[in-house]
């Protein structure tokens, strides 16, 4: 499609973009290009096209909140002292003055009470961390629900999952640094997790803590991981994530003129630069407002860590909430045999469940591709309803996650909703297994009925809201055909492939093992596609539209005949 560039707002200029800046700028550009060859790279990318949709900006929230984390984190390092050396607190917060605490805690209090803006930046850092992980998660859900993880983007999906893992660990190490009562309790629990590991547990604990818990090494070591190792890894993965995004070009929703072969949207310069840049300031601004107005992690109220003290409502930050919930609802399973102890009550929720969950997430694109046998590249997104089984899988995972998460707040739920903590726990023990199954079934059927609804609209038109009374007195709603662009968007999707039948596989004459695998795969594919509604063929659509037109015509002639004065009872 050719575009008349002259037809843009005049402030935007109507002449083509040619270098016309002052001579100095040109000279600098020349100097740089002669050394870096930027011209070629920038020619390709300056006007690179990005499609516009709000759900494409969720990952951007994660990116920008990470930048805010880097900025605020750097500020905090100027005062934070990652040392477990014991000091007497002598700062401005009276109720703790003279209390024994680690330098880490004392310097956190100094940042909060004696550095202007320190408390603000501390809270911004913490809110940004909570938002960082949260935005990665909704970004992941968006990518999954719309099928954006399919070939060629599977590796970017894997990178994204690793980022989620690293972000969570980064969050946990940061949460532990102030060495207050709450974070210390979390570290103590982490010590318990390590000790529960088979065979090497106590060695791991002694090595990581530099001796017996709590030792004097854990804060400096966490600090190193928190400000150096993990951010470096995260940055590297973000860079890879973005490079692949640029290389693959962004996915887009199907619509008129939007195909698998093109990408339609606004150019990087200026529109996307402005929108992304503007969003950075908005993310930064929202986090600053939250940091200023909303309290988070008031360490002075928890006091310094002391292994003999604890507070009600001891919870980790939200992203560690779901394994904590599993820890709460697991029954008291421990095996004592031959003088050794196997702590299933710690291993299953912490050492098994989260890695397993991550592995399932990473495997999802590959599993789906294997089941469907789909090896094509995909750049058009799918509506969640159009792949009901996939949507239902994620809904089931989300239900499991959500229930475990709620279990992590069972004490708060108990006091806020006047329930028994024991009853909640018993309920959750069953719900984390039954809930996802129910959610899967409901989500799947829901998708299929939405598919039918779309199909209905396509074939019989949408409900116009105009009611018409027939001469017999019956009422009918006038259905109007969908606008062409909408109708096209609905049909711009693939028909599901038809899985092989067992007879077909037998007929191939493959070796027994391959036949068996192929049959399993075909069976899974049949389950995957079962009951899906396929889009109509051209003939079907034509028939339906013809029929609808006829009906419309009849209705119209009835309307023209004037209001019915005979009443509904006539003729009955």
């Amino acid at each position, binding site marked *: 499609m050719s575009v008349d560039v002259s037809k843009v707002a005049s402030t935007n200029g109507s002449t083509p973009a040619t270098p016309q800046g002052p001579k100095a700028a040109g000279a600098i550009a020349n100097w740089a290009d002669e050394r870096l060859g930027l011209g070629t790279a920038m020619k390709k990318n300056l006007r690179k096209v990005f499609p516009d*949709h*709000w*759900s494409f*900006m*969720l990952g*951007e*929230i994660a990116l920008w909140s990470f930048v805010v984390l880097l900025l605020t984190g750097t500020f905090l390092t100027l005062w934070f002292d990652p040392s477990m050396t014991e000091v007497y607190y002598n700062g401005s917060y*009276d*109720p*703790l*003055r*003279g*209390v024994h605490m680690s330098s880490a805690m004392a310097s956190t209090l100094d940042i*909060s*009470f004696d550095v202007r803006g320190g408390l603000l930046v501390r*809270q911004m850092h913490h*809110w940004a961390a*909570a*938002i960082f992980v*949260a935005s990665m998660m909704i970004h992941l859900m968006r990518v999954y629900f719309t099928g954006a993880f399919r070939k060629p983007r599977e590796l970017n999906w894997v990178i994204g999952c690793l980022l989620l893992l690293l972000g969570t660990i980064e969050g946990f190490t940061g949460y532990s640094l102030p060495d207050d*009562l*709450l974070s210390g309790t979390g570290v103590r629990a982490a010590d318990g997790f390590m000790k529960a590991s088979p065979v090497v547990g106590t060695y791991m604990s002694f090595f990581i803590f530099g001796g017996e818990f709590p030792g004097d090494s854990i804060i400096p070591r966490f600090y190193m991981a928190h400000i150096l190792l993990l951010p470096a890894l995260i940055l590297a993965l973000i860079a890879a994530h973005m490079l692949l995004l640029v290389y693959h070009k962004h996915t887009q929703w199907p619509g008129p003129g939007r195909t698998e072969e093109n990408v339609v949207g606004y150019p990087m310069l200026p529109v996307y630069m402005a*929108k992304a840049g*503007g*969003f950075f300031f*908005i*993310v930064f601004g*929202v*986090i600053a407002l*939250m940091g*200023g*107005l*909303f*309290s*988070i*992690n*008031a360490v002075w*109220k928890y*006091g310094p860590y*002391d292994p003999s*003290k*604890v*507070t*009600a*409502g001891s*919870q*980790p*930050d*939200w992203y560690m*909430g779901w394994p904590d919930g599993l820890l709460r609802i697991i029954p008291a399973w421990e095996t004592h045999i031959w003088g050794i102890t196997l702590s299933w009550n710690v291993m299953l929720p912490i050492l098994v469940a989260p890695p397993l969950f991550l592995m399932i997430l990473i495997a999802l694109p590959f599993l789906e591709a294997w089941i469907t046998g789909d090896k094509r590249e995909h750049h058009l997104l799918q509506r969640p309803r159009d792949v009901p089984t996939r949507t239902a899988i994620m809904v089931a995972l989300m239900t499991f996650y959500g229930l475990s998460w709620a279990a992590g707040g069972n*004490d*708060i739920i*108990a*006091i806020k909703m*006047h*329930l*028994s*903590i*024991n*009853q909640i726990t018993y309920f959750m023990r069953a719900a984390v297994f039954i809930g996802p199954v129910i959610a899967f079934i409901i989500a799947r059927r829901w998708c299929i009925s939405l598919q039918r609804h779309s199909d209905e609209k396509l074939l019989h038109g949408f409900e116009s809201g105009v009611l018409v009374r027939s001469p017999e007195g019956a009422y009918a709603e006038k259905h109007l055909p969908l606008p062409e662009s909408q109708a096209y968007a609905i049909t711009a999707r693939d028909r599901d492939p038809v899985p092989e039948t067992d007879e077909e596989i037998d007929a191939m004459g493959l070796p027994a093992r391959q036949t068996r695998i192929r049959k399993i795969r075909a069976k899974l594919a049949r389950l995957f596609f079962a009951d899906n509604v396929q889009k109509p063929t051209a003939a079907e659509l034509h028939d339906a539209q013809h029929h609808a037109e006829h009906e419309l015509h009849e209705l119209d002639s009835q309307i023209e005949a004037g209001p019915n004065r005979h009443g509904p009872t006539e003729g009955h």
Partner: protein
Amino acid sequence: MRLLNRSAGRLSRHRRGPIAGVLVLLCGLLLTGGLYAALAPAQADDDADNAALVQEGRELFLVGCAFCHGQNGEGVLTQGGSQYGPALTDVGEAAVDFQVGTGRMPMAQPGSQAPRKEVVYTEEEIAALAAYVGSLGTGPTIPDGELYDPETVPEDEWNEYVVRGGQIFLANCTACHNFEGSGGAMPRGGYAPKIRDVDPKHIYEAMLTGPQSMDTFSDGNIPPDDKKAVIAYLTTLNEAPSYSGFTFGGLGPVSEGIIAWLVGLGGLVGFAVWIAAHTTRSSKKKDEAAA
């Protein structure tokens, strides 16, 4: 405290008629604070008055409490053998002053958890009830203001009290009542109540008597002066400004997580929707407008 009981006893003698009831209430409100200070030095021990007060309390007890706690405070057992209302023979005056003074007693229905609600008895009636129950056996008496009133802490020792109290609070109280005194969950539907903005006297009495399922912190457990230090810390917690902004109930990471999702992420997604939304379109063509 005994002195307060006396003045209350005198007034309550007249509380038979309907007008007297209103009068008692009015006088009670007006005089509670004033009489205590004004009449205190003038009072000597007066057994007759005390006996009257006990008698008064017994009458109130028979009407309002005996159904669950028995005619003589001996407690009532259910057929299942559990307690309908526990025996009150050795709970002491302080327990009554706390339970009735915070509206926990009388309960709407029996149960292990007595929620705090509006106080139904007047100060004088509470004093009478306390005197009666106190007369049934041993048990802590209503503490003297000197023991719990944070006002009595000398100015120059205030901070030392707050710091010490904070450490004792964190060692003994936060496990159930939370680091900010916001309360927490206990087994089988029980809960440790919120203890912010509670009258210092009631905090002291709660430590002394262990209401409902709470442990007792008798004077042999936490000495009186350390109890006062805890109260001083709680007072500071109440009075200190919120340095960090809105706290959302002081419940820790759970409420913070909810805010991060709803306000933080919710707001940012809202902005994203705005950024990507289509702008309004004009029906005019560029050329027509230019013409």
